[in-house]
């Protein structure tokens, strides 16, 4: 079942990227989509994790949240780079608990941390993430677990 929607999506993708409707080019599209779907099926990579279609309805809310965080963090780091008002950096290394229990959740959370400038996830284990933070404020903010909660709420709850 999943491979049908995968094929449909791939074909829409092909049409948008090519922008041509000649039979020859559409035919090439069909052939390459069929080959891709065949190979992905053989490699067994069309599953819940690599093709998380069930999460797509959560994307807008997650995206708005992460965009807001990115803009906030960017402004903070820019101020620190330029050194306005005596702003400086105080790099920190902290371990914070990883509350997302599945791999997909952990990847989403770690990527969200890295996407916001000022914090980079540098090591993942089963229960903790090691974070390098540019400032103590950023490290403390992550340690409160607000971002983890927001992401769990926006991505995994109904």
């Amino acid at each position: 079942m999943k491979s049908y929607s995968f094929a449909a999506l791939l074909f829409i993708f092909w049409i948008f990227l090519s922008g041509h409707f000649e039979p020859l080019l559409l035919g090439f599209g069909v052939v390459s989509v069929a080959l891709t779907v065949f190979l992905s099926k053989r490699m067994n990579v069309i599953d819940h994790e690599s093709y998380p279609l069930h999460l797509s309805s959560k994307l807008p809310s997650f995206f708005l949240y992460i965009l807001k965080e990115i803009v906030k963090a960017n402004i903070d780091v820019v101020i620190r780079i330029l050194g306005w008002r005596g702003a400086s950096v105080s790099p920190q290394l902290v371990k914070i608990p990883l509350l997302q229990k599945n791999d997909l959740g952990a990847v989403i959370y770690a990527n969200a941390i890295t996407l916001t400038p000022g914090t980079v996830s540098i090591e993942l284990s089963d229960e903790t993430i090691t974070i390098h933070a540019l400032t103590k404020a950023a490290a403390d903010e992550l340690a409160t677990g607000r971002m983890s909660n927001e992401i769990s709420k926006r991505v995994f709850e109904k």
Partner: protein
Amino acid sequence: MIIDILSWICLLAGGALGIIGGVGIYRFPDFYSRLHAAGITDTLCAMLILLGLGLQAGWGIAAFKLALIFVFLFFTSPTASHALANAALHSGLKPKLDMESRHD
């Protein structure tokens, strides 16, 4: 006209952020903190430039492709940053930490 102005604002702000990110890479003390400065060019700078270009392109295939570039950046740049930082950590590069204000 309004779209032109908006797109110029986006492009200029994006360019300025790119330069600031470069300055940050120069100014910050060690490898790990430089990653944060590079994070600016990865995120807001790239977003603003792509948005500015998208406004210039108007609705169409070009805008769709710009959106795709954005999506790929959105997924790959944190992965790349993490891979770099992780590799540095595992090969024994110690981050310069601010010991005074450490809290653990």
